[in-house]
């Protein structure tokens, strides 16, 4: 699985389901700065868990680990190995 593919999957999910229409985003944006709150982060987590059939370990559920799309994508790659 390519890091790039995972990033664009998450970005597409964000654009489609969470972000307001005129907000642009890249994988390196700090999510909190563009108004993504912890409720939305939980949505992203559930999205990737279900899409890639993996489970993020409970002890990994700390907001700092979900600062950017890039952070999250890396985590997905790491967990799928």
């Amino acid at each position, binding site marked *: 699985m390519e890091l790039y593919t995972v990033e664009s999957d998450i970005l597409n999910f964000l654009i489609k389901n969470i972000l307001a229409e005129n907000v642009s985003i890249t994988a390196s944006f700090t999510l909190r700065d563009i108004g993504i709150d912890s409720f939305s982060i939980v949505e992203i987590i*559930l999205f990737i868990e279900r899409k890639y059939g993996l489970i993020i370990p*409970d002890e990994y559920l700390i907001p700092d680990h979900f600062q950017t799309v890039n952070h999250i994508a890396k985590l997905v790659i790491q967990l799928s190995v």
Partner: protein
Amino acid sequence: MTAATKSKLPAKVYLTGADNFYLMLAHKSKVEKAGHNVLRIVFQFEDETGVKIISEKINQSPIIFWFLNITLVNRTFLSKPHWLYKDKGVKPVIIEHNHDIDKQIPEEILNREISLNDRLIEFDQIKYPSGKVGFVISWHHIIMDGRGSGFLIRHLMRDGFSDSNSILELFPVKENKNGLIHTIKNMYEVRDFVQDSSQAPIETVAEKNTANSSVFKLRTLQFTNEETGRIDANAKNNGARFGSNIFQLAACAHGIHELNKSRGKEGTIWLPIPYDGRKRGGNGPIVTNSISFLFYRLEIKDLKTIKTTVSSINKQMSEQLRMDMPNKYNLLLKMMRHIPIWLYSFLTTYSSRGVVASFLYSSAGEDMRDMNALLLNKATDILVIPPYIYPPGLTFSFLRHNNCLKMNIAYCESSLTNQELQVLENGIKEKLLQENKIETISSDVIVVGAGSAGVAAALAAAETNSVILIEKNDYPGGKATAAEVGTVCGLYYFSKSNESKYVVGGFARKFAEDLARASSTYPASNNLGLHYLPYNIDAYKKLCVTLLHKANIKTFYQTNVKATEIVGSEIKSILVIKNGTEYKINCKAIVDCSGEAKISKLSGLPIIEEKNYQTASQVFTVEGIKEMSETNLIMLLMKELRAAIIDNVADKHFEKVYVLNSSFKNGVASFKLNVPIPVTYAPGNIDELRAEAVKRINFFIHHFQKHVPAFVNAKLKSIAPELGIRVGVRPVGKYILTETDVLNCTKFDNAIANGAWPIEKWGENVKVEMHYFKENDYYQIPAGCLQSKQISNLFFGGRNISATENAIASARVMGTCLQTGFAAGKMAAGYSQNSIESDIIKSIQQMQIFV
């Protein structure tokens, strides 16, 4: 009545158990020519219209038709006694009588027996020369008890009675069949019950060998409205719980005691306790007797004063409930259905085997208000005439009509002489109407409610004046302790900065600092810019207790305010009740920190009400959670709940479950969940909310134990004693704080508090609604929000200051309550010392708002 309705009537109905007792009495009365088994309800009307309404209903009623067309099939060797219904076409007959004296019931009706082989329900209409009319419904006690009669009238008068489904509600539910082992187990339980409850025989009013008369006598004591009020007050003052019933019963026992003394037979008395086996709150069944009797024993020492009697009954009541006596008694009755009538008779009356009371007592149809409403308020009087049942040959019954208590004494002629009746009557009346002495105390300032605001108010006023603090719980802190709120909000500026900067000064700030020290906590903030102080619940309680004690404030715990006395434009005194004892407290000024405008409501002053209030929350604590950081726990919680909602395992309201800030330590965390039922303050609403909260907590725990490894060993540790009700009614003050004031950060010349929490509204929506004002700013609350518009010595603090729904959604937080409470206490103290208002306000400003 249609043929279809008739066909829905049950063909076979078994007796429930208690009615076997009446069957036995019917049998005895035949043999011994004593006893009386007819229950009557009497309506008095100004003219014929009321009678027309009721007789029309009777003629159309399927249930009356059923009563007239049933036959008792007595027990055979194998079958239980039951009623067999067959449409024989017997219809109700209303017999007409004439009588000279208004309201009196002709002897021919009173002394008429009802045979089990004939019509079981009879109707009489009595015409008086004045044009007034009486109407009597009489029935054999075996088909229906006193409370059943109330249900019957309600069913008769309500439309929809002809609905065939509702008919079935009036009949006993089918009994479950139990296995042999179960039956044997029951037999042992029943044996134990009989051994526990049976004692040596006691004196009954009419003794076995003296009664040879079936002449029915009735004496009615009518109490006025004022006397009824005094009886209710006496009941409370003497410690009667659950209304006045137990007090009335205790007074009857004293009457009997006087009678026994006059007969030289002073001794132990058995009190019958009507135990209603019907489902609580349910309206049925009416057919057959559901009320049975348990007994309490009163020895001479218990009859020293009415208070000792009430206390003994209370104690025995708790004891019986603890021992599960009502259920065991039910078991006994169920078994009684399966034994032959002669054995039943032997078991219930043979000396020392069963128990017979000194007298019987019925509170059937205590309140006739709604019954009369069904008669379009046409009835000028309603009376329930109980049978006297021999032995004991004497029955008391109480009922209320138009807020006046009425007491009936039904007895057989041979059991009481006229003089003895007088002794009995006087004995009862003396106890019921005894002069009510209320202890009066005085204080400069009364503070109602010992929550954050109330404690602040009491401490503020106590700096210069005497103070009495009234609290409904048995500890201070209000929602901070009882609902375990867990964080103090409103102390610091709204700011994205990490530093928590106080927006309040004076008492509120000092209190917060002491609380933080005692709890070992520090101010915390979130990324939205909200700053708050987490605290420990016990530390909060302890701090309040210590401060109140140091200031020498007399605190009445477990005390409720019952009434206020207003003279001119001032409240002169309030009436409070603590453990059943009333106190009158005189005051110069009063501060209402009840959170629900209690004083204004009791005084009939205008209040700001809403149809629904903000939703309530419930805090609960879970132990045995795996160690992790609190942020980790929060995210884990959010993820698991969100997944459960998406998978339709949990409803959307579970999104509103939170970890209380900084509560997670050593595997123990407190959570808060929102209860998605509207808060209306209607009767029963709080119980309903609480039940829903508990249901949700149980679901939460089970779900997490099952699905989240970190919760495998988790257990519910506690549930906060009270719901977190955020907002209640508010009084109308000289000024009403508005949403605009809050959002524009309005400042006032006569400000007494600074508000810094955004408008936080919890409603039906899944997410909380927040409305913020400018960062690093605050709004102010003017003194007018704390002063009653009508009453010059009434002040408000805390959640019930004068504010609109949206404004109070900000000003309700503890940091603000501490300030408004303190200011209200100072203003009340100043008022009681005749100080100049502007000077008081200035000094409050110096103390707490110029930070």
